[in-house]
């Protein structure tokens, strides 16, 4: 119960945030060498692995030291970076969500990495196409991929067995998926076939997008100036959601507090559409399987949310160190070490060619599907500064259908109008 004057704090907080981070920021070297600051949001094993890698870098580069600063969570990384600029204390390298790239593209201090990645030695094409596209805004490469994931279908084998439903396969259709979810739902025992994060955030949106794309739809037109999801495909995707959530009532609607994972662990939910980040939180006693998302006419494409390391200019020396460090950190052998330590997916295709890759697969057998599924990422979300507003409109649309508050066509029309006015107002 904060007793602060929140209205002023809303904007004053910006300064405070910057000041708070200023306390722990690093700066250029006083002993002749350079020190750069890297803001990240890693926790647990990832933080440990990152710290170890930075230690290794610092040992090998005594004149180009890296100082790690925890940004207290990636969900607000963008806000903190922007606050850092306002307060005049910003990182040399920051971990950012891919969706933040367009907002940061306006930042005058942002270092354009186009020339860096186009050098043959960098081997830019070794990154998956979805990662490359997430890093590109208006034809410029503004970041280096830091993490890649995708949505796949994770299911509890015991619940399928108990309900007498055959296990999901990589060739499941939407109907197969819907029918199975219905059979796996039992109101008496309060079990659900599927769970959907229904908080209206990007979490809600990015489970809808693969459905839209599989059915042949697009979110926006090719130059991102007009909405295009108000289409037959857009409606088909919403119809499926409505059929499952409203008609069949086979979907647990998570209100954003993340209960779905606990409920999956306690055998209340049979299937999730989720990414590799959730696997470490699934209890050891849950016998689960992973496969591709169900498909539409054989199209099983999924969505990926690649995150980026972005670099910001302080001085020529520090910028060079920053770029050098990012290049090293995301090189195949170095990142594979990180992947083996954390279970994060390989960033570069060539990581799977390295001998140590077998260690990764042995340690994280379940991740094989996620790695393979990277090839099923065919679309990326539009990299535009107003994406967060587009996302809000689409999130409200999906939410209104899932809650049974609007018919799919009506919801599409409303959201399409909103997105059109957002895009027109740019």
């Amino acid at each position, binding site marked *: 119960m904060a007793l602060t*004057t929140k209205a002023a704090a809303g904007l004053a907080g910006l300064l405070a945030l910057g000041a708070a981070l200023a306390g722990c920021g690093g700066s250029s070297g006083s002993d002749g060498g350079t020190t750069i600051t890297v803001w990240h949001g890693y926790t647990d094993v990832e933080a440990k692995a990152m710290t170890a890698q930075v230690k290794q870098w610092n040992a090998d580069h005594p004149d180009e030291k890296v100082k790690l600063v925890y940004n207290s969570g990636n969900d607000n990384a963008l806000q903190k970076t922007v606050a850092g600029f306002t307060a005049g204390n910003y990182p040399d390298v920051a971990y950012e969500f891919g969706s933040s790239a367009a907002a*940061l593209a306006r930042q005058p201090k942002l270092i354009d990495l186009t020339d860096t990645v186009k050098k043959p030695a960098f081997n830019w094409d070794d990154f998956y196409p979805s990662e490359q596209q997430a890093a590109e805004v208006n034809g410029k490469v503004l970041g280096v991929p830091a993490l890649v994931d995708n949505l796949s279908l994770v299911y509890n084998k015991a619940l399928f067995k108990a309900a007498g439903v055959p296990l999901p396969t990589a060739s499941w259709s939407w109907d197969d998926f819907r029918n199975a979810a219905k059979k796996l739902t039992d109101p008496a025992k309060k079990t659900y076939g599927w769970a959907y994060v229904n908080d209206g955030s990007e979490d809600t949106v990015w489970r809808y997008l693969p459905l839209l794309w599989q059915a042949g739809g697009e979110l926006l037109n090719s130059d991102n100036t007009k909405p295009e999801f108000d289409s037959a495909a857009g409606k088909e995707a919403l119809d499926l959601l409505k059929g499952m959530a409203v008609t069949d009532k086979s979907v647990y609607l998570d209100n954003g507090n993340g*209960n779905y994972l606990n409920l999956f662990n306690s055998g209340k939910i049979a299937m999730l559409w989720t990414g590799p980040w959730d696997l470490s939180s699934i209890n050891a006693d849950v016998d689960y399987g992973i496969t591709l998302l169900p498909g539409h006419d054989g199209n099983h494409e999924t969505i990926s949310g690649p995150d980026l390391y972005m670099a910001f200019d302080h001085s020529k020396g520090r910028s060079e160190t920053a770029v050098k460090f990012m290049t090293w950190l995301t090189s195949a052998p170095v990142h594979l070490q990180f992947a083996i330590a954390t279970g994060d997916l390989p960033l570069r295709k060539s990581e799977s060619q390295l001998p140590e890759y077998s260690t990764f697969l042995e340690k994280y057998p379940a991740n094989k599907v996620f790695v393979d599924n990277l090839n099923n990422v065919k679309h990326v979300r539009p990299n535009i500064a107003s994406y967060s507003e587009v996302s809000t409109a689409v999130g409200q649309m999906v939410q209104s259908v899932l809650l049974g508050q609007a018919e799919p066509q009506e919801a599409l029309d409303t959201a399409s109008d909103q997105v059109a006015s957002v895009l027109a107002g740019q």
Partner: protein
Amino acid sequence: MTAALFPATAGRRTKPSSKKSADQRAAWGMVAPSVLLIGLFGLVPVAWSVVLSFQHSDLQTPATWAGTSNYRELMHDPVFRESIRHTVVYTVLFVPITLVCSLLVAAALNRRLRGISLYRLAVFVPVVTSTVATGVIFSWLLDPDYGIVNALLDKVGLPQSGFFSSPDSALYTMVAMTTWGWVGFGALIFLAGLQSIPQDLVEAAQIDGCTRTRAFWLIQVPLMRPIIGFMLVWLTINALQLFDEVYVTTKGGPLHATTVVVYYLYQQAFVYFHAGYAAAIACLLFVAILVITVIQIRVSRDRDLDPSG
């Protein structure tokens, strides 16, 4: 800020002393550090927000002048209008409910019982519990499918609720949750007020045949009017500035059902990076709070001075 307003009204009736100027100098010396800090971290950002509200700013590139266009746009923003409605509904419910509950709890705690400090502690715990923890616990308790509250409602044959998950009930659930969090604070203040009222007043009334309940409503409550006035202003300001609880539980949803003014401001400033637009919202909110507070203080001061009131 409001805490200072009430002593000022009380102090109005005291006569200026001859030591006044020396005292004043000493007083200013003592408050100078706070004045400086508040000025720097409070007033400067506030002034800056006013300037910002007449600009277009994404907080990254240089701002451009917008004239009054942010304000004009706000007038036609349906989500802003909705957020005002939600804020008003929230405030109109939250303030009186919290006020009355706090009074009743304070009355219940104002007695000599074995282990009374334990009860007082229990009532005060929600105040010192972090909002994040409160939010997480409530969203578990109130989960429509698996929460214990719906399970209990079901047991006793009452209809279940969607709580935070349904647009129809989310705002009311917010009122309930925040009331729970604030009653401890209100009760603490009222308890202090009750204990400052001479016991012989109540005893005298009881000798005259007045019941405890009547004595409470007719003697103790009227004597606490300045404290009630303070709580009224304090709760109203906080209700109009509701943010934390929304941020940690519903994020303004579902379907904007709990999008209150400050949450919308946050969204505009730090999600969409429309800082000028957000500053315009902040300025309007500031004016609204100022006007409401002044009215509240005027009304309670007039009542204090009115011998028949």
